[in-house]
């Protein structure tokens, strides 16, 4: 509750955080209501169905962003693709943050051979070249679900979070306030959750944002070169279609430009939120009087 009021207060003071949250909020809203929007565009029929409309219609009042090579409505496609991209980001972000945080806290707090084993393991995963492996994996994984793609991507993105958070845990666990908690009969788990975790929220936040972004862009990267898993249409796949059909030369520029603009906005929004939240997390940056 106290954190919430602090966040609200900071939003009022930090224009960066406010702008980031508004952009992200709008995108999430768009994603949440994407089935409704798609339905409204189709007016009863499915606008993303092959040959729903004529091919290559230029943007106009009926089709705000035109149609593609199969006669699908680009606006409807973009809206549902964005929902897919955000879901991938959220799934992979949550999985890799949770995995990274658990590994980092166990390794950093327990130390000794446990730390040795876990750190070596994360180190090994870190040096595996992710992208070629993802390409190979996606070749085997046709028609995989969104969740499976998220898991696939997060297998390789959690070590980054784990590494940075572990180093912070190492520096925090020898702080006197941890000793004070121990002589106050606090158990290990309690110390980790109440003493260490709050001080690491900025790092966890950054870890979440970077793995979410990494997952979104990882999938986009796969789709753009035409190697994405078959079952999902995300923003990358629309870009791939635009490139492979030469949509720009046919006057269907929104197919290419709109997904890229959305991805850029998403990137900017998440980064602005990160920087803005830093002020909430760090009490030294709060108002001098404390309230």
């Amino acid at each position: 509750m106290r954190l919430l009021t602090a966040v609200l207060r900071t939003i009022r003071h930090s224009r960066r955080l406010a702008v980031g949250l508004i952009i992200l909020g709008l995108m999430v809203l768009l994603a949440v209501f994407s089935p409704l929007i798609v339905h409204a565009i189709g007016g009863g029929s499915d606008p993303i169905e092959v040959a729903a409309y004529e091919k290559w219609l230029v943007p106009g009042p009926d089709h705000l962003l035109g149609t593609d090579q199969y006669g699908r409505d680009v606006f409807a496609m973009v809206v549902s693709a964005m929902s897919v991209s955000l879901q991938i980001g959220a799934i992979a972000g949550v999985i890799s943050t949770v995995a990274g945080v658990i590994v980092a806290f166990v390794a950093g707090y327990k130390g000794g051979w446990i730390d040795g084993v876990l750190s070596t393991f994360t180190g090994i995963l870190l040096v595996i070249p992710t992208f070629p492996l993802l390409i190979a994996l996606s070749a085997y994984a046709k028609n995989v679900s969104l969740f499976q793609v998220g898991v696939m991507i997060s297998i390789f993105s959690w070590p980054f979070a784990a590494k940075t958070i572990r180093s912070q845990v190492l520096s925090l666990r020898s702080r006197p306030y941890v000793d004070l908690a121990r002589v106050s009969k606090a158990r290990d788990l309690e110390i980790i959750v109440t003493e260490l975790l709050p001080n690491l929220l900025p790092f966890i936040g950054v870890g979440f944002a970077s793995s979410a972004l990494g997952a979104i862009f990882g999938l986009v990267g796969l789709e753009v070169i035409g190697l994405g898993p078959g079952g999902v249409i995300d923003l990358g796949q629309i870009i791939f279609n635009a490139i492979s059909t030469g949509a720009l030369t046919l006057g269907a520029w929104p197919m290419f430009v709109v997904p890229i603009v959305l991805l850029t906005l998403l990137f900017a929004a998440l980064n602005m939120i990160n920087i803005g939240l830093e002020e909430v997390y760090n009490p030294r940056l709060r108002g001098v009087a404390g309230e």
Partner: protein
Amino acid sequence: MKSELELRGVQQRFHARGVEGGYITAVDDVSFTLAASPPQVVSLVGQSGSGKSTIARNVLGLQKPTAGSVLYGGKDIFKLSRAEYDEYRRDVQPVFQDPYAIFNPFYRVDRALWKAVKKFGLASTRATGLELIEESLRAVRLEPENVLGRYPHQLSGGQRQRIMLARVHMLRPSFIIADEPVSMLDAQVRKHFLDILLDFQREHGMTTLFITHDLSTVYYLGGEVMVITKGSIVERGPVSTVMHEPSHPYTKLLLDSIPQPDPDARWTTRINVDELDEEEKTDAPATAPETPVI
């Protein structure tokens, strides 16, 4: 409340790379006893790196010694039963060195006090808990309304260190392990702090292990003093005896390192220290300390 805290042959080694043998010995075969009655102040004096803070961590159960044992009421503190452990935890409480790092910057300072109230079951209701906290804050001459609800960075070092004393005041332990509690405080705050410690000894019967590198505070506190160098205790006795008839060369060096508040004494003091250094170099005994950085 158990009446004795005893260190028996405590040795603490740390792994270290690039050192002969692969480890450094921070504490080497240290044995001493602290008695709860009569309440006393025992000072542990030594230079940086002599192992005094490690001893504090051993006594507080934060660091398990590699050999030897720390006994509370005759039992090893790492082998206590649940009930005995609870008693030991409440009965042996610390005051740490750095008043800036002792509070979690994420929370208000009240939390450190409330934690003590809750973890040790000092009060059954919030109202009695608050009463207790306010009473203890007044006991260390802090105004509750000036400190409660504040974040650590909004308080001075002296205020923060006294909140730690208020915490001790609430818990009423038999033993206070004070690890250089005044080294980061300025002069008049330091006296204030030491006086509160002496009050605790007199009024609440608390025995203090006072760890410091500063002999002038030892003088002020009185009681007994132990001198530690390179992980071993080389001298123990009443402050007056050790101060006036030091038997170990390291104690002499320490005594000569006290700055005199007298402009005329400055010149001779400096010469004395230099001469002592020369002496150390020529006929250094086995336990001679490293030349301190001046």
